[in-house]
């Protein structure tokens, strides 16, 4: 199904943590708000990538 090892997906973990935290912290000053924003960002990005992944999977299955 995937042409690469699934372990490659682990590269995603530190990246999404760093990006979400920095993104949240550049939009708020209060720590709890920063964490909340970071969580929303991480969820959004992950969801977006999941949708793309499923779309590519379907296209691959159809072709």
């Amino acid at each position: 199904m995937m042409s690469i090892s699934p372990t490659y997906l682990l590269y995603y973990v530190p990246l999404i943590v760093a990006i979400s935290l920095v993104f949240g912290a550049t939009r708020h000053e209060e720590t709890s708000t920063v964490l909340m924003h970071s969580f929303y960002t991480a969820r959004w990005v992950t969801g977006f990538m999941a949708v793309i992944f499923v779309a590519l999977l379907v296209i691959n299955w159809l072709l």
Partner: protein
Amino acid sequence: MRGYQAAVANVNVTFNLEAPKRHNASIVTRPDWRKMGTRSLPTAVLATPHQYHSPATSMPPTRNVIEVDSQKIDLKNRHLAAFLAWLLPGAGHYYQGRMTKASLFFVCIMSTWVLGFALGGGHVVYASWQPGDKRWHYFLQAGVGTAALPALVQGNRMRKMTINGATSPAYKPLWGGFMAPPHRPVIEDSTDEVSAWYAVSGAGYEMGSFYTMIAGLLNILVIYDAYSGPLSVPISGRKEKDGEGETSDEETTNEKETSS
């Protein structure tokens, strides 16, 4: 609804006729999204700092002081802060006394940078602009400041030792080759030093390049934050719908103009 009222109170700016001279900044308030929940007002546009001040605060106008999430932030010398933020991630915020964010930025960005550098076998950051090896990645990687500067020194040294597109045999990189460009010529689809790096690091070379580039890009956000403070946008990013007792972008602007 309570959150909405609080927001209007927060963005209720008035023209300060007694405002001091130009460039004498005052307190700029930004809405506290934490108090208003995650689906409250969108970004409120505030006027230039030297024209307005919040009537809610009794503090006299202070240079470069803003209020975000109910916290007053003294940006101090924002140009210096931005430069420090570029030089070392988090240094600008440390200078401004924003210790938590300084630590967060330093840890997040530098760990991403170091991890990427290690994944790429220590060869993903170098400055080169030669045919066949135009390392455009470096423009993004340079966002982290000091950590990427050795590559400039190495790149300049290599440039001086490149004759007719080939590295001189007399060339010896500094610091054991740390951030040094590959020996030239570098030709695509041929065996050279870059292909050897690829062979050793595999996918790690690509991932290392991405990590270090992303670290540089993230630091650009941090530089902006050090210069002008947080953007203070709604957490969910959703716009409010009409008829739900909440408001939209245009309405917010109109409310602000009316109150002023």
